[in-house]
Each structure stands twice: as C-alpha cells, then as structure tokens.
C-alpha cells in the first residue's frame, strides 16, 4: 500500500531547500513510526517520494508525499501521526491510500497554480494584456548543466494567461503553469520574461511566490485534485 499525503511548506520555513525538505520528511516518517518500506542493501533507504521539487524561497500549500508501506495502516491514523512528527512549518492537509503499483503522483501532476506578490505599484496593465494576447514569448532560462548555459523556452506554452491586480502597495500575479513529463518552468522566470520583453522593472528578487495548487487534468482538460475524492482531510 502507498500512502499519499498533501502537505505544506509554510512561509516560516520557505527558505529550506528541496533536499532539506525531503530529509525532514524522511525523519518525520521515522518519528511517526509509520510502517514504511525500506530499500534493500547495506544502506537502506526509506521508500518515499515527493511529487515535485520546490525552489528555495517558494511557499506551497500543495506538496505531495507518497510513502510506500511495508504493512497496511489506517490512513487517518497515519496522517495524524505524521502531522505530529513534522516541524511547525509543514502540515498534513489531506491523505489517501492507493495500491503500491499505482502510478507515481510525480508523473500525474499536469499543472500548478501560483500567486506571486511583489512590493510594486506601477501600472503594468498594458504589458499584461500584451502578454495574454501574444501567441508566443521566447525566453532564455538559465540551464547551468547545459553547454550554452541557457535553454530557450516558450513561456506562453507553460503559462497561457496571467491575472494581475494591484492594491496600490503590492502587485499580485495569479496564474496556472503547465507541468509536462519533460518539465515545467519556474514562477520567477515569468517575471524575468516580463521584465525582458516589456521593459518592466518588476523587483524580481523581492517576489513572494506561493504555490496554491497542484493538480491533474482529466481527458477533457478539467482540473482534477491529486488525491482521490475519498481522501481524509485534516485541519
């Protein structure tokens, strides 16, 4: 059996890295005494995985962890035990269970929804309209592992539409970003691309990025929650 839980990365711990986040969850699984499965070998590893890698500084209310169990356990009990064993900034929101051979959540995520808040008050509605109407917007994203050091992507392929509001002190971006088997793009690169193409001066380094949702897509293209409908909800 495989437990799947929706967990958070709250603002107070937003600056831990993906690796640190993963280590923390593995230790919490041990503290919670979940009957988790281990890999074979001299240095056995807990069998668990995270649905996506979140950048340093990014807050999320929809992270997913999948834990393979060696023995079955009641979902609600497991979810509560893990919640108690996690540090304050990581909470368990919901949980369900599937068969061990069920496809990994990682492979099913099709999109994410973001909110990005900037301390910025200039009017950028023209640029926003232009972006939303543009058929394509090419951007060279940093790709340190490649020879060229960058990779050209079409921002519009990943983010077809953005909603932008401003309350006088802060500008808030809301958008969906596609996730494909070959990858996705970083929320911060949307801001970089906007700055580059429309000569804006968005203070990218101050961006407060929150991932609000991660979802699957149905055959018809509707958003479907990552967990099953019968998932147990906590808190």
């Amino acid at each position, binding site marked *: 059996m495989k437990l799947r839980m929706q967990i958070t990365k709250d603002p107070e711990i937003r600056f831990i890295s993906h690796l640190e*986040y993963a280590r*923390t969850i593995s230790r919490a699984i041990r503290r919670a005494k979940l009957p988790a499965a281990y890999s074979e070998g001299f240095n056995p590893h807990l069998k668990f995985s995270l649905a996506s890698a979140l950048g340093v*500084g990014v807050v999320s209310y929809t992270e997913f962890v999948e834990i393979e169990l060696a023995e079955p356990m009641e979902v609600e009990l497991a979810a509560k035990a893990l919640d108690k064993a996690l*540090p304050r900034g990581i909470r368990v929101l919901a949980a369900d269970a599937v068969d061990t051979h069920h496809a990994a959540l990682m492979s099913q995520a099709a999109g994410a929804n973001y909110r990005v808040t900037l301390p910025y008050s200039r009017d950028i509605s023209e640029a926003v309209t232009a972006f939303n109407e543009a058929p394509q917007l090419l951007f060279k994203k940093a790709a340190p592992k490649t020879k060229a050091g960058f990779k050209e992507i079409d921002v519009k392929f990943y983010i077809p539409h953005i909603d932008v509001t401003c309350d006088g002190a802060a500008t808030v971006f809301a958008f969906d970003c596609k996730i494909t088997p070959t990858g996705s793009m970083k929320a911060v690169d949307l801001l970089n691309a906007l700055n580059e193409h429309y000569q804006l001066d968005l203070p990218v380094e101050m961006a407060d990025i929150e991932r609000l949702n991660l979802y699957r897509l149905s055959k018809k293209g509707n958003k479907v929650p990552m967990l099953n409908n019968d998932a147990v909800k906590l808190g």
Partner: protein
Amino acid sequence: MEKELTIDILSSVQKPARYTGGEFASIIKPQAEVEATICLAFPDVYEVGMSYLGFKILYHLLNKEQGVQAERVYAPWIDMEAKMRERHIPLRTLETKKTLKECDIVGFTLQYELSYTNILNMLDLGGVPVLAADRTDEDPLVIVGGPCVYNPEPLADFFDFAIIGEGEEVMVEVMTAYKKWKRAGKPGGRQAFLQEVVKISGIYVPSFYKVEYNENNTIKAVQPVAENVPPVVYKRVVGDMNSVDFPTSPIVPFGEIVHDRIMLEVFRGCSRGCRFCHAGMVYRPVRERKPEVLKDLARQLVDNTGYNEISLVSLSSADYSCLAPMVHDMIDEFKDDRVSVSLPSLRIDSFCVAIAKEIQAVRKSGLTFAPEAGSQKMRDVINKGVTEEDLMNAVGAAFESGWNSVKLYFMIGLPFENDGDVLAIADLARKVQYKYYQVTGKRGCKVTCSASFFVPKPYTAFQWFAQDDLENIRRKQFLLKDEIKTIKNVTLNYHDSKTGIIEAVFARGDRKLGKALLLAWQKGARFDGWSDCFDYERWLEAFAEAGLDKDFYAARQRGENEVFPWEHISPGVSRKFLWNEWQKAYAQQLTHDCRRSTCTGCGVCQKLGVKIIDYKNAHGEVEA
C-alpha cells in the same frame, strides 16, 4: 520593530535555512509565560553550532524552567553579514526573532580561541555594546561558559560574568536569581545583580578583580576588589551523571550539520592523563552513566529524533566500563529501527578494533588511530601510555578484519622534541605498512598521517612550555614532508601553523589581549578558524598597535613560580600536580590512569568533593 531579513536577502545568501529557524523540536513558549529570555550564542556558523552537545543540553534544561525561554543564535556567514550591515538589520534569535539587545541574557560558549572575534562581531550585530563597561541597564547581561573559560582573561573586557565548569546545576540557580531580581523591578541595576550572582558558586565576574603586573609584564597578583568575591572561583561539577538532565528531544535541523546524528554522552571526564590535553585536566573526575540509563536515553532519542545513528560521545568513549555489552544490546535493540551505533574515536588496541568491526561504524575505507607522537620517547613525554607494539597489534587486528587503510593522528612541536622524533612519524607509517604486508601478504596499504601543530593550554602539564616558533615548526613540517614523500602510499596532511600561534596567544593570554582582540575585529577579523577568512598579517598589526608581543604569550618558557593570568579560576587541579607532571615529562616518566587504580593526586576529587564513578571497579554496581 527594527528591520528583518527580507526575501531578497535570504534568496541571495548561501544556505538561508541557517537564519530562519522553525526546526523540529525547537521551542517557542507562549509570550505570556516568559519572564526571562536567554539566548545561547554559538560563535560559529549554524552547522557547527548545531552540532555542539553542550547547547543541546542547556537549551533543553533551561526551557524546562518555568518562565525561562532559551533561544539560539549562530554567527552569520560573511555573505549574510555583508547584507545585514548594508541594510542595518540586527542579528536576531532563531526562535522569537528577538535582537540580542532584547534578550535578558546572552550566553556564549567558548569552545575554541579562534572564535573569539566572532563573539565581538555577533554582539555588535545584535545591537549590544561590545565592551562590558559600555553596557547600560537597557542591555542584556553577556555571559560565557565552556572549556576555554578556564582562562577567560583575554575576553574579560567583553563579558559581564562567566560560568566556570558544568552548567547544568548552576544555570538553574542563575536563572532563578535573575527572575527574582527582574520581578522586583531590577533594583540597583546590573551592578547590583552582579553583586548578587557572584554569591553563587562557580560565577566569575571579571570586573570584581584587579590585576597587577610585574615590570616584565608577567602577573604580580589578581585580587578581588569587591565584597563576597572569592579569591579563586572553582568550577562547578555534576556529582552524578545519572541524575542530571540529558536532552531526549533535541532539535532536529532541516539540513545537514557537521555531527548529524544522536549524540549520547556516555561519561564525562577522562583521567588517562595525556599531558598535552586540556580536556583531560579540566573535566575531571570521570563520571559514567549507568548502561540502563544510557539505553533508556537512547530509546527516547531514537523515537524523538528519527535519526538513524547513535554516536557514543565522551572524551574517550572506548574506556567506558560496560562498552561491549552495551553496544551489543543497543545494536540488538535498534536493529529493526535501522539505527546504527558509532564511536567517535578508537583507542589503540585490538579490543577497539573488534568493537569497530561489530558496529561497522567506520566503513572499510579507513580506521583512525591517534598515537599522537612518532617516537616512544615522545609518547612517554606526553604520557600517551601507548607503545609501538600496541599500535602494531591494533592495526594488525584491523588488517585481519579486512581494513586496508588507516589514518594516524600526530602532533608536532611538542616539548622536548627533536628532529629525530619528527622523522619517527614516517618510520611508524612504514612499520604500519609492513604490518599489512605481514598480515595479508600484499603491499599497497594506504596510510594517511595527519600532523597538527601543538598548542600549549592552561591547566595542563605543558602550560609552562614555549611553543615552537613559526620558522621552527615549518622546518619540521618540511622535514617530515620530504621524508614521507619517499614512501609509497603514505600521505601527510598538515595545516598552516599561523592559526596555531594565534590560538596559543589567546589560550595563555591575559587581560591586556582584549585590546588586540578589539583591534583585530575592527580591522575585519572574524571566522579566524576558517582558513579562507584568517589573516595573520592583520593579527600582527593588531598586536603591534596594542603594544603587545605575541611571543611573550606563545613562545615564552614560563618559570616555576610565575603567576599565571588564569589562576583565580580553577578546575580544581593543583599546580603542584601539574608541575610534577611537567618534570616527569622531561624525565619521560609515565603517570597511570586513576580511573580504575590509585589516586595520582591531581587534587580535583578532594578539592571539589566529588568522586570517580566507574562501573567496572569497586563502586561495583555493574559487572562488565
């Protein structure tokens, strides 16, 4: 509210999680319950400070006290400091994000002399006046503790009072006194509190002592200048380690720290009597914990932390009376939890190799032994109590068990050492390789030798010794390097010796050094223990400007009757004992370990009214 760390700053520094807290088991009490906040400040980066057992103990213990909130702070790395200074952002605690100035007490641990500049820097970043004399009633009390506190004189200008010795009991007394004084509305201000707290045994208030110097700059006398002040402050020591609190739910950090595992303190103290060893003198006597107590602590620690390794820490854990049976039991008990057991260091004998094999703590890649010196003469000078035969037996056992490489730790620059003694290190490495050939019939055993530069410390037999100067130690390093180059598969590691000289200056320094410390910090010194930050020239300038001579402190042989700057603070070891040990070192005579034999007269047990607790001998509660 003053400025806080913002998203752009945290996104631009290395390892930002160092600065944001929120780790599992970190403690934040409801504000209404908190009467006094003490900040435990470690003068080095997060990963180093979080590995420090002493603060795990004190954090847990202080937070158990009603009304006390203990918090943590570490030295911000260079990149973060630059941002903080640029934007005037003060240094804050990880728990409730108080600036250091907002805390009631800020307590630094003194583990290493080369972190002293970081203390000044952290105070300054935290909004606290660096000099104790400049602090007002609006400022926190700055206190220090830890092993270097047996000579805190170079820091006397910067702290308000020191805790001498083990903190478990005395800190509860200090916090109780503090809460009482604070509740009463802080009558008399900080000066009155100092006069109150000095009545607690183990508290040293430097401003209550006057230092007089001789014309040759040595100390004439150090005398109390206030009432109720003891002429000598003796250390506090926990009588029974079984009844003192040990943290069972320490903070588990998000990222990897230097010692990323459970640290279970098996016993305190070590009386093997190595003459260079500061810890061996200042932590006496040996006090073991019972195996049942340790097993119970281990269980709770495993359950509460989720770590998969237990390290049995003590100054020489292999000397634990019940080691083998306890290790068996623990391995058994934790097999299903996939928790392993490890020892931080091995003694040089086959018993230890057998244990190492059993716990597989050290993978086949290499076992480490510390003969400390190459020649038998030098091992006798330092009272190591290890012969070449012992080493050959130990490595022989290791090779029989399948290891094919060893690491050997040595010191050079020891008293009475000549070039032959230095070259003997290479010789020993050769013999180890030959042993491998004898045992396995094969060649190619890898031997890694590491040679560190000896730094004489106060309250050791070598406190009278003049440290080698730079030129001499370099010559010895090259001599050894050239010799080892000729041996295949033997490598030599050694460090730049300049840090060792600054460490030596502060280890046996006096109050005048405060000026040099302040100057060096003002010139930019910090993280002096990090080779990429250390700047020797800067230190030389600081000494020159302060009108001080580094050689006076580091490279000067002291006379039999010279008064040392640290003698009004004492771990209980008698000067007579140390002088005798110094004489015996010259004569290459050994002194036995008192742990399971007769008292060798260091004076600690009698002076402090404590005794050795060891479960192997007549105290008899446990049979090994």
